[in-house]
């Protein structure tokens, strides 16, 4: 397993956000976490990337415990996080945003090559490379956030609601991008409220309800599950 989370619980102050969540993510897969607003999906990702600390439980990545590491160290282990709401740096240019993604890398040639391949993937970013990031549209900002995360050369990419607030045609483009990223061998954990999209992309899925793991299974099985259909697919 590339990533293993065991009985993880996170509190915000006295309020419990997730309780005893366990999940396993095999290398090369796309795994999704679906659930309603406030179910603990983002908190789970924040625990993985070190933004939230565990009250109990453990996380190991590539066989190494990472749950005590600070967020800025976890990137170096090979986990990049595209946070909820994109969180690009508004007053840096597009290119500067992308280069911050490679902050820990020392291979100058590799960084330049990855910057070029990022511009190949996202031609819009190349056109706007000298523009301040805040001047771009929501879809472009989402692509910038994804590009920035890829510049870290991650083994595992955490994506929090990449479809949020975007027009359907852009959502389709994001879905295609996620497939491309995965085809390059990068493992993806995708958090989505858009369950239809998420289950279509993922091989395995976890369903969170009010901080608890309610259901898990292969994505196509969950897609046909009566409870999931009623609660998340609206059919």
């Amino acid at each position, binding site marked *: 397993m590339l990533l293993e989370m065991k009985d993880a619980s996170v509190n915000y102050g006295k309020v419990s956000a997730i309780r005893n969540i366990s999940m396993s993510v095999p290398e090369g897969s796309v795994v999704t976490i679906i659930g309603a607003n406030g179910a603990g999906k983002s908190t789970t990702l924040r625990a993985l990337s070190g933004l939230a600390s565990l009250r109990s439980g453990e996380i190991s990545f590539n066989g190494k415990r990472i749950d005590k590491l*600070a*967020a*800025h160290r976890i*990137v170096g282990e090979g986990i990049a996080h595209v946070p909820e709401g994109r*969180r690009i*740096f508004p007053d840096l240019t597009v290119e*500067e945003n992308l*280069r911050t993604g490679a*902050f820990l890398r020392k291979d100058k040639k590799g960084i330049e090559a990855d910057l070029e391949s990022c511009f190949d993937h996202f031609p819009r970013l190349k056109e706007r490379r000298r523009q301040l990031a805040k001047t771009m549209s929501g879809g472009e900002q989402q692509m910038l956030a994804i590009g920035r995360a890829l510049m870290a050369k991650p083994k595992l990419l955490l994506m929090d609601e990449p479809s949020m607030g975007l027009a359907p045609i852009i959502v389709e483009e994001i879905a295609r991008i996620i497939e491309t990223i995965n085809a390059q061998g990068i493992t993806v954990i995708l958090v989505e409220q858009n369950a239809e999209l998420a289950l279509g992309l993922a091989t395995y899925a976890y369903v969170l309800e009010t901080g608890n793991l309610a259901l898990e299974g292969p994505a196509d099985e969950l897609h046909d599950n009566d409870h999931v259909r009623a609660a998340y697919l609206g059919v």
Partner: protein
Amino acid sequence: MGELLAQTALNALYAASYLSLVAVGLVLIFGVMGVINFAHGELFMLGAYGVVVFYADLQLSFFFAIAIGLVFVGLVGLGMERALFRPLRDNPLGGLVASIGFLMVLQALAAMGFGVRMEHVPPVTQQVISFSDKVHLAVPRLYVIIAAVVLLTALWAFLKKTQFGWALRASAQDPEAAALQGISINQTSRIAMFIGAGLAGVAGALTAPMVSVNPHMGHSVIVAAFIVIIVGGVGSLEGAVVAAVAYSLVHTFVTTFYDGVIADIVGLSLMLVVLIVKPTGLFGTADRA
């Protein structure tokens, strides 16, 4: 009259130079760490005492004394980051209160070490550049102007052209997102604190021969610097420089043609007007305010 105006403008340029150095450091520290450093005027004061010790007393070279001031005051800044601001990171009000406490500690230490009387720093040089019979610029003042231009340009290049400069700006804009890129907030805080404190120290050291050096000299500087960063827009480095120039022009002209107390009143009134007309300051944006 024209000559008086020209002379006053030169005086204002000198005042704007050291004020920019102080205010930009204050803005940098606020931007990266989210804390208002009330002890910033005392870092200015420490830089001036560095010149008293190394230049006036030990008779070392003036520029060596300034270099020591930069490094020593920068290190004091690092100590403040570690001992005061890091433990209080999630508590911006706590950081502010701690810096007020530290301000008093520094003033008391200076008074214990040097006494409260004014220290006299001998002039570095008597040279004066004369533009006409009545328009002069003393060379020590020219040093301050040159230092401000050089240091602020270097800071600008550092922030725009180097990887750590990007990291600093990124963590000022969104510390959590910066951490996700591998940027350590402890590291960027140390850099911001060293640079910010060092600039205040240099400003104090450079102006020491022209002002009265005493333990409370930071007070007037910090008041002017606060007005400048509020007018410029808290968090905006460019705003701080522009506002420092504007404030110094107004303050110096009013001092010359009326008097210093009126000038202080006018300065504060200008700040109030800016706050009423544009509450985020001239260069500030709403999300930073």
